[in-house]
């Protein structure tokens, strides 16, 4: 049916000259005939397959293919805790400080602050000057009251990121419209990395209140602003603003023409929901997207072979690790540190990195990924594959022939997209090279495994960890401190480590911190409750027309300077 006939048809429909049966018949006919015609002709308006690129996206728009459906939930600073959406969040909302290059994890820069914090002599009061003349997307001017509202709201919503506003300070107050003072619970050397987290961004309190936000104690039950934000609205100050939100279709960020800083080079960035990593790459290769967010190690090789594509690579701060219970119940033989060390020497780390991860990973010494503070200093203490040493340690342990139960999340992927079935099968084979040690694989429902692991019920499991902020303490504490997060799950407790953690977070001198955290990491390596298998590299596939895009270990993609060539 031609366009003209369609038009006539619709006119007749509107004028009531077509009844419902005829309309349904027509729709059915369209449904039946059109796909076949399109498939045979290449579609209306489709260019010849020889034209390259067939699907041209203009140079002012960047299209990113990402699994939005499973990884994006909101861009509300009070509720966000997802990883992938950080890339959009840091464009839309801004915190006080920013880390432009995550390969230099100590080089933070003021963003909505004008200077680094001034800390009182006792380390408990932190005063921060705010940038003047900053306007929200609504046109409202940013003040210290907006900051106080945003952080109080985050605290009272009591969701995932609320610890950022609950755990570290007693109070936040506006000294004047452009100065805030934070009273810390205890001196905190990681305060700048914490303040660079996107949930601590400053949002437009006036606009948010008008749309259901509250910072009251019962905000967890009464705040409804997330629905307003998820309708495609923005209350931020960033160089882009959210204009459309459909995680099953597209999320669109448009350039903020009134941005206080250097304006963005792109007019818009579109995140397009494509769930499957292979399909994401195909979309980039076919010119339907500029960048594929998810890139499995297995398909990364095809990117380097395609001259229209580039591989954007950078370090991540994720780790995949083995957790071994240190108490007799449920650890059994693995509660013996010599058995754990034997396992540490039996694992073929190079095989995991080069064969399974196709070289897109490194082996950090322990639970702190490189290049965080003190990780270089403990490099020579990391486990290396040495089967003789493994056998010797196992025999020294005196536990005799034993079987370990190795639990993992069935059908899941580890950090960097590695299939856990493949990884665990390899680990089983590696460990069983120790005479007298057998490993029974125990695939579990992911939710049940997580619950059992967190309850400290698993003898031996594999898990992943990603950072909350860019400081060594966000790894050293959960893995090292008694009764905290990962340490609690394996019953790990070392009073020396606890004391050093107290000293490390309070120490403001960087050199002294290196010494303290080197000792902490060295002790964690020796105690061997955790063995880190690998630290993946972040890899993204992009068309060569994409410029100035970098991977980022916290914001995932750094797009503030992004541009495209024709």
């Amino acid at each position, binding site marked *: 049916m031609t366009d003209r006939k369609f038009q006539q048809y619709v006119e007749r429909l509107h004028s009531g000259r077509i009844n419902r049966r005829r309309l349904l018949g027509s729709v059915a006919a369209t*449904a039946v005939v059109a*796909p076949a015609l399109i498939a045979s002709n290449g579609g209306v308006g489709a260019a010849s397959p020889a034209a390259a690129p067939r699907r041209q996206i203009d140079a002012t728009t960047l299209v990113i293919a990402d699994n939005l459906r499973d990884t994006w939930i909101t861009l509300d600073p009070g509720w966000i805790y997802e990883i992938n959406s950080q890339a959009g969040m840091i464009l839309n909302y801004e915190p006080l400080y920013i880390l432009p290059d995550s390969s230099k994890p100590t080089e933070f820069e003021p963003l909505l602050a004008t200077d680094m914090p001034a800390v009182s002599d006792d380390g408990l009061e932190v005063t921060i000057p705010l940038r003047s003349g900053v306007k929200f997307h609504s046109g409202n001017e940013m003040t210290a009251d907006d900051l106080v509202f945003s952080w109080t709201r985050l605290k009272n919503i009591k969701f995932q990121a609320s610890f950022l506003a609950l755990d570290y300070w007693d109070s936040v107050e506006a000294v004047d419209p452009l100065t805030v003072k934070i009273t810390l619970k205890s001196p905190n050397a990681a305060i700048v990395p914490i303040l660079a987290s996107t949930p601590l961004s400053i949002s437009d309190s006036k606009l948010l209140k008008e749309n259901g936000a509250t910072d009251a104690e019962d905000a967890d039950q009464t705040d409804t602003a997330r629905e307003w934000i998820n309708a495609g609205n923005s209350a931020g100050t960033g160089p882009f603003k959210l204009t459309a939100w459909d995680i099953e279709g597209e999320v669109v960020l448009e350039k903020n023409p009134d941005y206080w800083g250097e304006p963005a080079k792109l007019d818009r960035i579109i995140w397009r929901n494509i769930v499957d990593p292979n*399909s994401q790459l195909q979309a980039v290769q076919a010119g339907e997207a500029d960048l594929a967010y998810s890139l499995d190690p297995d398909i990364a090789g095809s990117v380097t072979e395609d001259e229209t594509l580039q591989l954007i690579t950078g370090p991540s701060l994720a780790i995949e690790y083995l957790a071994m219970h240190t108490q007799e119940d449920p650890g059994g033989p693995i509660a013996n540190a010599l058995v754990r060390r034997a396992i540490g020497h039996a694992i073929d780390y190079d095989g995991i990195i080069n064969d399974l991860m196709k070289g897109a990973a490194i082996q950090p010494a322990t639970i702190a990924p490189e290049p965080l503070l003190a990780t270089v200093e403990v490099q020579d203490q990391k486990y290396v594959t040495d089967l003789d040493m493994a056998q010797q340690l196992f025999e020294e342990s005196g536990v005799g022939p034993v079987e370990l139960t190795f639990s993992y999340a069935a059908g899941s992927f580890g950090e960097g997209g590695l299939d856990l079935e493949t990884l665990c099968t390899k680990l089983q084979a590696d460990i069983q090279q120790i005479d007298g040690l057998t490993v029974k694989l125990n695939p579990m429902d992911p939710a049940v495994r997580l619950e059992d692991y967190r309850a400290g019920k698993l003898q031996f499991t594999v898990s992943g960890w990603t950072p909350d902020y860019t400081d060594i303490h966000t790894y050293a504490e959960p893995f090292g401190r008694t009764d905290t997060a990962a340490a609690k799950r394996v019953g790990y407790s070392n009073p020396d480590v606890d004391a050093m953690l107290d000293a490390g977070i309070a120490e403001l001198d960087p050199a002294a911190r290196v010494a303290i955290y080197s000792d902490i990491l060295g002790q964690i390596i020796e105690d061997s409750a955790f063995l880190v298998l690998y630290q993946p590299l972040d890899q993204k596939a992009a068309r060569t027309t994409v410029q100035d895009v970098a991977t980022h270990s916290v914001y995932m993609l750094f797009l503030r300077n992004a541009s495209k060539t024709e």
Partner: protein
Amino acid sequence: MGLWAFIARRVILALFVLIVVSIATFLLAHAVPGDPITAIMSDRQANNMEVRAALERRWGLDKPIPVQYFYYVGNLLRGDWGESISRRTPVAQELRARVPATIELTFYALAFAIIVGVPLGIVSALNHDRWPDHLSRFITLLGTSVPVFWLGLLLLYVFFYRLEWLPGPGRLDVGMQAPPEITGMITFDALVTGDWTVLFAALKRLVLPSIVLGSFAMGIVARMLRSSLLSSLGDDYVRTARAKGLGERSVVIGHAMRNALIPTVTVLGLTMAGLLAGAVLTETIFSWPGVGSFAVSAALKLDYPALLGVTLIVATIYVLVNLFVDIVYGLLDPRIRST
């Protein structure tokens, strides 16, 4: 029993089925080991009892299971389907957006199944045990046995990536706005509003997922029609029609087909309900925002409100299809009404 009494009885039974389904789903979801709050809590916050308590309060999980069920039903009757735990959005809003997408995909998949399956079945039956029959049976065998995920990825690779004849995953082209929502089915809405650009873009994006989803139904339709037609072609009334000197076309289309289509249509009805509920893999491969992908995500994260919402919708579809079939049978054959 009169017709209206028969229909009333069937409707009451259908409501009873839905109540039983809701109770069973509620109990089963809570009986499964695992905890939805644990599933959404980060490692960092996992031991924070204040945050856990706030989340349990938010989703009513701090109350006993029977109380939770009655709250749920009470809210349901007021039109509140609850809030998804994993997505933190109203379940009703999610379903409102997804059901039309799944219905649209199912409609085109069914259209593909009929367009290809019916001719294949006819050709097969009319050329019994000759090469067109063997070829047709081979195609239908492929349709029913090729795994959906494999076919989906293969078609994407060939027609989207290699040949560039058809677009990739998604319902619309990059940056394209959907027409004003009337039904949520983009092709229908675009047709009614006269937005031809969107209509053709949406149709192009429906071709591959429709083929993938419809291939199984196509195989079933063709095989059922072949079998029924072969049986009809050997019946006395067909022989009589031929003896009267009717042309072969008239005999096949006018006489044999009419009877052969009855079992095919019955199977097609049930297949349609299955397609509506079972488009999970197709929706995942083609990033299609339908009910199937929502169901998988909800099940993996033990998202009780979302799971219940999806189950009730799917159960309602099955119940309505069965109710419709029952009523039609009752209309066609009064003897059924008395049983």
